[in-house]
């Protein structure tokens, strides 16, 4: 029983991170109808920004490792990632707005590879130890072992999800986002600047990915330039599982995938963890391509 509860806690904190990344995939898909391969590398940049900014803060005498310091690191990473996301969209994707999906897809793969290999050149190939940016403590509740980092991950993820929900449902720009996602041409006809909304969406999604990177670094404190690959693919699977284009779906899919993955890790099939995730993807694409919470789109000639 305690072991099951322990797995639930681990699954929740992993699932929350997947949910944050999956939201970025789903939002970009909502407005531009393509899968932003580079998203997982923005996630990696988030972790590295946190690594360097917490180091810089330590050098300038800020209390690194305190709660406020940790929040500051988180905000810096999110801002940096938002900027990178907007820049990527402006430089690589905007020139291709009217081109075929295949062209955009290849470009996205190119951007992803550029960030990974550029990262290897700039940050070095060897893994780095992620610092304790929040005060870290381990609690024991009965047989349960809970790290305070896991609680921070859950708290931050929950706060960000709430904030995102508020932005998308209650603000003007969120309404515009939904309008562009519903029908881009109609949205531009009623005076919405679609390019601005797309930039904003990229910024928002990338900021969430950056936060995901920081939280991932806190839970698995070894970061390297290729770290985005595996969680990125998992988050993509989560987005498809929940129904791509649907925000609650992405959050749900992330949670489900987090649970499944910690569940598989606990058994003797743990080396096939990634294969199980892909089996889920293939299964969902075959039997319910719209995802758990998505709507079917009918292709018209």
């Amino acid at each position: 029983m305690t072991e099951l509860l322990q797995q639930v806690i681990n699954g929740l904190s992993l699932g929350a991170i997947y949910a944050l990344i999956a939201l970025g995939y789903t939002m970009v898909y909502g407005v531009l109808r393509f899968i932003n391969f580079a998203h997982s590398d923005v996630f990696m940049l988030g972790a590295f920004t946190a690594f360097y900014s917490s180091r810089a803060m330590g050098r300038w005498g800020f209390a690194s490792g305190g709660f406020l310091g940790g929040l500051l690191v988180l905000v810096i990473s999110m801002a940096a990632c938002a900027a990178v996301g907007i820049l990527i969209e402006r430089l690589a994707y905007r020139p291709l707005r009217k081109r075929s999906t295949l062209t955009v897809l290849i470009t996205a793969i190119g951007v992803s590879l550029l960030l990974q290999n550029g990262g290897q050149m700039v940050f070095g190939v060897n893994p780095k130890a992620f610092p304790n940016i929040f005060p870290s403590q381990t609690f024991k509740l009965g047989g349960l072992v809970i790290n305070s980092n896991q609680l921070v991950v859950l708290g931050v993820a929950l706060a960000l999800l709430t904030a995102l929900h508020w932005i998308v449902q209650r603000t003007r720009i969120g309404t515009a986002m939904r309008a562009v996602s519903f029908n881009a041409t109609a949205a531009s006809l009623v005076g919405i600047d679609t390019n601005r909304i797309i930039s904003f969406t990229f910024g928002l999604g990338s900021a969430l990915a950056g936060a995901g990177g920081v939280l991932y670094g806190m839970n698995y404190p070894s970061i390297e330039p290729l770290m985005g690959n595996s969680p990125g693919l998992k988050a993509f699977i989560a987005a498809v599982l929940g129904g791509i284009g649907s925000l609650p779906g992405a959050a749900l899919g992330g949670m489900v995938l987090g649970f499944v993955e910690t569940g598989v890790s606990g058994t003797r099939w743990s080396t096939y963890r990634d294969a199980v995730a892909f089996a889920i993807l293939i299964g969902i694409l075959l039997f319910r391509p719209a995802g758990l919470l998505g709507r079917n789109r009918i292709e018209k000639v």
Partner: protein
Amino acid sequence: MPSWLNRSQLVLVAALLAAGLAQFFSNHLDSYVLSVAMGVGINIVLASSLNLINGFTGQFSLGHAGFMAVGAYTSAVLTGKLAAQLNPIFGGHVYLLFPFALVVGGLVAAVAGGLVGAPSLRLKGDYLAIVTLGFGEIIKVIFQNVEYVGGAKGLNAIPDYSNLFWVFGTTAITVYTVWALLNSTYGRGFLAVADDEISAEAMGLNTTRYKMVAFVVGAFFAGIAGGLFAHLNNYINPSGFDFNKSIEIVVMVILGGMGRHTGVILSAILLTVLTELLRQFGDYRMVIYSLLLIVLMILRPQGLMVWPFKNPLWFYLKAYWPFRMLARRPTS
């Protein structure tokens, strides 16, 4: 010209003879030049077979290295661990073991291609790319976990059977097969699927079947290329067939212009030779590849190796043989 041999078949026979001739004189060549030349041939096979899937049929696959791995491992096991059991079958003709191993490797890769393609080819565009990427990674993970073929350490002491004849013979057969397939009545369907799947289906073409055929044939040749690769390098390990390897092949296809025979061959030659020349900048290679992809897609999505159509000189040249092949993409 005998009547039972048309011109393209004649070219194939000539190419096979040339490969044999090259092998006959190969001991005059520097061994480094020889290995680069064979690398060129293997990459042409890989790029042409991927071109059938990605270019002509328009199905974006990112798992080509996985099929290459299947062929490489199968043939390496046949010529290595199982050689003692297999050799008696060939009697005195032990030299037949290698082509046998290559073909079996290709067939096993084709079966793998069928298994991967059957569920995933229902998907389109981005989804297909991700699923093939996933399958490629799964194939890699499986080889990492199988101790019989060395697990993550890989397989070494593979006999060096690859030579100019086998490599360029395979190259000629691959290029001919893809070319002939595309120029047959049946083969026009591939182009139709790429141009507009819904219209193709409305015209009564079985689009799923076309995609499967492209996938299986592509995987078959990728498997053979894997076998040649294994017997050229004498060593293979699972991480040599990762996503980056797939991307390398994809870049060759895109640079040459998707769905163009000659352009893709030229770009496979160019990129292989460039990689060798830039070996000291090896760390930057993937950075350059990725930048190349982005810039190409923005400025010249039709590929680099496609002749500039608006050049007046080109207007005259394109009527003649070597240039004519650059100019035209068979259209449906």
